[in-house]
C-alpha cells in the first residue's frame, strides 16, 4: 500500500504519539518516583507562566467586555455583559488561551531541550545507564503540565472576570453591584469543571507533543529548531481540535 507522503507522515506521527502516551501511562506507577523533578517542572511550566497568562486573561476579559457591551447595547441588554464575559472566560477562553500560550512557552522548551539531548546522544546515554527516557524525562514533564494548566486556568478565570469588571464599571459606568450579580447569576459548577477538565487535557497534550517532537529529533541543531517549531504548531492544532470535541462531550 502506498500513501501520499504527507498522509503517511501524519499516520506515523499519530502512531508515535499514541505509543508515547501508552509508555507514559505504563511508566508512571513504577518507582523510583522523582518528586523533585516533578516539582521543578511544575515551577517551569506553571509558576513561570503566571505573568503571561495573567496578562492574556486580563486583556481578554477587558476586550470581551468592550465587545459585548457594544453588541448587547443594540438589544438593550447591556445588563448581561457580566454574564457573557464570565461564561466565555470560564467555559472556553481561559483554557484555550492558556493552553496555546503554555504550548508556546513550555511545550516548545520541551521540544528544544529533549531534542538537544537526542542529537547530543544524552538520551542514548540515559538508556545505556538503564534509565528509560520516557520514565525519566517525559513522565515528570507531562504530569507537571497536566497539574499546572488547570491552576493557571483558574487564575485566568478570576483575572478575566476582573478585567471585564474594570472595563464595564470604570469605563462604561455599569453598576458595580448588579454587574457582579450578573457575573455569577448564570454560572454553575459545571461551567467551572468543564474549563478545568479541558485545561488538564490541553496540559497533557502540549507536554506529550513537546516530548514526542524532542525524542524524534534528527539532524543536529537544525533538527532541534524544527522540533521546537513543530512542538508549538502541532500542540496548538491539537488543542484547538480537541477543544471542539471536548466541548461536544462535556455539555
Amino acid at each position: 500500500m502506498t500513501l501520499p507522503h504527507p498522509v503517511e507522515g501524519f499516520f506515523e506521527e499519530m502512531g508515535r504519539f499514541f505509543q508515547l502516551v501508552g509508555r507514559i501511562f505504563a511508566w508512571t506507577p513504577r518507582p523510583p518516583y522523582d518528586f523533585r523533578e516533578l516539582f521543578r517542572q511544575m515551577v517551569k511550566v506553571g509558576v513561570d507562566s503566571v505573568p503571561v497568562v495573567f496578562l492574556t486573561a486580563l486583556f481578554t476579559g477587558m476586550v470581551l467586555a468592550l465587545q459585548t457591551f457594544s453588541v448587547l447595547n443594540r438589544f438593550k441588554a447591556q445588563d448581561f455583559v457580566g454574564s457573557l464575559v464570565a461564561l466565555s472566560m470560564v467555559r472556553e477562553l481561559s483554557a484555550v488561551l492558556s493552553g496555546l500560550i503554555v504550548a508556546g512557552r513550555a511545550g516548545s522548551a520541551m521540544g528544544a531541550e529533549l531534542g538537544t539531548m537526542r542529537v547530543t546522544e544524552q538520551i542514548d546515554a540515559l538508556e545505556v545507564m538503564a534509565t528509560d527516557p520516557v520514565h525519566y524525562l517525559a513522565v515528570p514533564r507531562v504530569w507537571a503540565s497536566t497539574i499546572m494548566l488547570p491552576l493557571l486556568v483558574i487564575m485566568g478565570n478570576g483575572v478575566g472576570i476582573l478585567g471585564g469588571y474594570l472595563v464595564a464599571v470604570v469605563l462604561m459606568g455599569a453598576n458595580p453591584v448588579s454587574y457582579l450579580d450578573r457575573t455569577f447569576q448564570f454560572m454553575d459548577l459545571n461551567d467551572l469543571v468543564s474549563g478545568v477538565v479541558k485545561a488538564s487535557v490541553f496540559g497533557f497534550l502540549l507536554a506529550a507533543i513537546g516530548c514526542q517532537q524532542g525524542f524524534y529529533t534528527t539532524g543536529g541543531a537544525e533538527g532541534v529548531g524544527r522540533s521546537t517549531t513543530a512542538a508549538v504548531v502541532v500542540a496548538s492544532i491539537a488543542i484547538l481540535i480537541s477543544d471542539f470535541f471536548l466541548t461536544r462531550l462535556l455539555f
Partner: protein
Amino acid sequence: MPEAVKIHIHDLHKSFGSKVVLDGVNVDVVPAESLVIIGGSGTGKSVLLKHIIGLLKPDSGTVEVDGQAVEKLGNRQITEFRRKFGMAFQEGALFDSMTVWQNVAFPLQRLTKMSRGEIGDRVEECLTMVRLEGVGEKLPSQLSGGMRRRVGFARAVAHQPEILLFDEPTTGLDPITTALIDEVILDLSDRLKTTSVTITHDMESAFRIGDRIAMLHQGKIIAEAPPEEFRRLDDPRVQQFIHGRADGPLSEETPARGPRDSKDETGSTNEGEPAGAGARELERS
C-alpha cells in the same frame, strides 16, 4: 557458539534509508579481552558499537552478549541487560543540566546500591583517575571538549561494569592524557577482567591497549589480528591506515557512495550528528 565468547556478532547488516552502513559484520570478543576497532570516519564504527548495547536494532544478523540475543530483549529486559555495560560516547554525551559530579554519580545512583558516602568517594576517585580533580562543581558547558570526553570516560567506568564500550575515548586529547586513559583501560582489563571494545583513530593507542585489532571498512571487518600480527598484515588498506598515508587503496575507494548520500553528508553541519561528527574527526586528525 563456544562457551568462551562474551560478545558474538554474526552477519550484522544495517542501513539508514538507502545507505548501507554495516554489510555483514562478523566479530567475536572473548571474556576479559580488549578489542580495538579502527576504520575511517563514517564507516560505521559508532553504529557497530550501538548495536552491541541495543541502542540500534540490526536489519538482519545477530548480536549476542553472554549468549543473549540483544535484539530479542523486551523493553524491561534490556534495562537489566544494560547494567553490565559502561559506555563512553564519542562526544561525551554528558547531561548538560547536571554538574560534572552529578554526571559521574548518575550511574552509581541508578545502577548500584551504594550509599551516599560511597558514591561521593567513588566519584572523587574516578575524577582523580582522569586527572579532573576539582572540576566536580562545573557544568559540562564550562569544560573543554577533551575534558568532557574524560568526564564521559569516568562516568562509563564508575560502576565497574563487566563490559566497557569506548567510542574514541582519546580523540583530541594530548599524548600524555591519551597515555593515561590507555593505562586506565589496560588496568581495568588486568585487574577487573573487564571485557572492552574501543574505537580509536590513534594507532599508537590501538597497539597499546588492544589484545586484538579489527579494521572496519565498507561495512565489513576486513582484517583482524593481535597487534604484532596486525602490524605486519599484507593488506594494503591496513598498511595505509596504520601509517596514515593520504594515497592508497582507501583513498581511491572512498567515492563509492551514491550522490544522494554525499549530499546528505555535506548538508549536515551540526553538533552531534553522525555525519557531522565524522567530518570534524577528519579535521582533527
